[in-house]
């Protein structure tokens, strides 16, 4: 008896072996914790003849602090990240995002890499085969019509990973390994606004690590709203990193998840640098966050709620962080 379709399983011992196997089998898939890929395979959403399991690749599981930055291997689990003291103290948005993914048992298996490569989601896509068949499928798989926006030429499935926005406001970079070597890019450039091709990763590349600068004076936080606080994907998630000096905001970054096909970096916040966090500033934050919220009807919860909640979460986090630094003007060392 087997629940999954047939495939060959390969278990490389090194990252370069994994990349070699992938080059030999272009339709293969990497398997990390399996908490996204295996349910998707069971539902017939992902077909592959070769699965390359990364669980034995020890070089992907390191966590090193070096020269003012923290390098995190993609194989580090979310439970490990959430419980790590350095991450909790210096990169709280990341620890909070990791602690808020799925349920506790998922987080013990789920990895950083799997979370960043998480498949985009939609109420018409993340369904069983009979359900999708009864609805004549959709553009992401099996038909040429989008059920969310019927005249649309693109898919709006939502990127719903919690870690990406946290890493964006923390100015992280991702490291990719391909047959020609390594390349590094800012995490925002790892994503594309397309529900069917949301990663700017070449098919022969492997995500190997994330590098996060440990900058003094910045504070950060992450918060999400979901249907059930115990287990669900974000309907919307907001990450904020902020730097305050005296009564002036000297740095502010905000990123969103669940409200677009990619994690969204909120733009237009630069003008606030040097100003206090007053009502004008909060109004600008609310307006810019609303502009970045491009939610479509991809969840059962309606769009107006998701549009209204992101500015609320953003303002709440900004005010909380502003107050925290106020009590401790030097900020974390």
């Amino acid at each position: 008896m087997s629940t999954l379709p047939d495939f060959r399983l390969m278990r490389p011992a090194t990252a370069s072996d994994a990349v070699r196997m992938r080059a030999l089998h272009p339709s293969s898939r990497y398997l990390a914790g399996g908490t996204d890929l295996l349910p998707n395979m069971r539902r017939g959403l992902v077909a592959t003849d070769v699965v390359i399991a990364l669980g034995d690749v020890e070089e992907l599981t390191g966590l090193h602090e070096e020269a003012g930055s923290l390098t995190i291997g993609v194989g580090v689990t979310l439970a490990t990240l959430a419980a790590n003291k350095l991450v909790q103290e210096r990169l709280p948005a990341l620890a909070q995002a990791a602690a808020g993914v799925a349920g506790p048992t998922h987080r013990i298996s789920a990895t950083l890499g799997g979370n960043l490569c998480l498949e985009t989601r939609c109420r018409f896509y993340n369904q069983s085969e009979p359900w999708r068949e009864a609805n004549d499928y959709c553009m992401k798989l099996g038909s040429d019509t989008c059920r969310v926006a019927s005249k649309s030429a693109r898919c709006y499935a939502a990127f719903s990973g919690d870690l990406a926005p946290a890493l964006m406001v923390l100015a992280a970079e991702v490291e990719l390994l391909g047959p020609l070597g390594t390349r590094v890019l800012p995490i925002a450039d790892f994503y594309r606004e397309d529900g069917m091709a949301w990663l700017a990763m070449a098919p022969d590349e492997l995500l190997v690590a994330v590098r996060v600068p440990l900058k003094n004076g910045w504070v950060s936080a992450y918060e999400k709203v979901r249907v059930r606080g115990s287990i669900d994907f974000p309907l919307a998630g907001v990450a904020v990193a902020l730097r305050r000096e005296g009564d002036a905001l000297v740095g502010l970054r905000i990123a969103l998840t669940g409200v677009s096909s990619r994690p969204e970096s909120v733009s237009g916040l630069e003008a606030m640098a040097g100003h206090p966090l007053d009502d004008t500033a909060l109004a600008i934050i609310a307006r810019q966050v609303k502009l970045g919220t491009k939610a479509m009807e991809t969840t059962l919860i309606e769009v107006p709620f998701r549009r209204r909640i992101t500015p609320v979460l953003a303002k709440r986090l900004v005010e909380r962080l502003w107050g925290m630094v106020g009590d401790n003007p030097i900020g974390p060392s």
Partner: protein
Amino acid sequence: MKKLLRLSVNGKPREDAVAENALLLDYLRGTLGLTGTKQGCDGGECGACTVLVDSQPRLACSTLAHSVAGRSVETIESLSAEGNLSRLQRAFHEHLGTQCGFCTPGMIMAAEALLRVNPHPDRAAIRASLAGNLCRCTGYVKIIESVEAAAQEQPV
């Protein structure tokens, strides 16, 4: 294709020819006949398939059997030694933590993992550890009370 899988299940070393695409859940229920571990959903949603891998909870429905090669797997069947219920099993029975019983093996294995690292958890810790285990019958209160009752007993 089948490949040899070596691991320990419920304390006994095993060697079985297992399909590469078999889920840990398929292997436990289908190959070994250990049907105490339940399948409650089509993947990752309910926690009914929770087993222990090296003492940590794991969803058997979202894990390949070959991913746990060389590891120690424990299922609900391992808890009742010589026909005696474990303290968690007894507490679920006596404190009405189980009704239809379908979620119970997963609940108990998740609670077992908790008690091994935190023998005297408070309510918040119990709720946090069982957050991914769904129950459609009890309303959860009796489940939490059952885990609390078990924690007050010394392990046998």
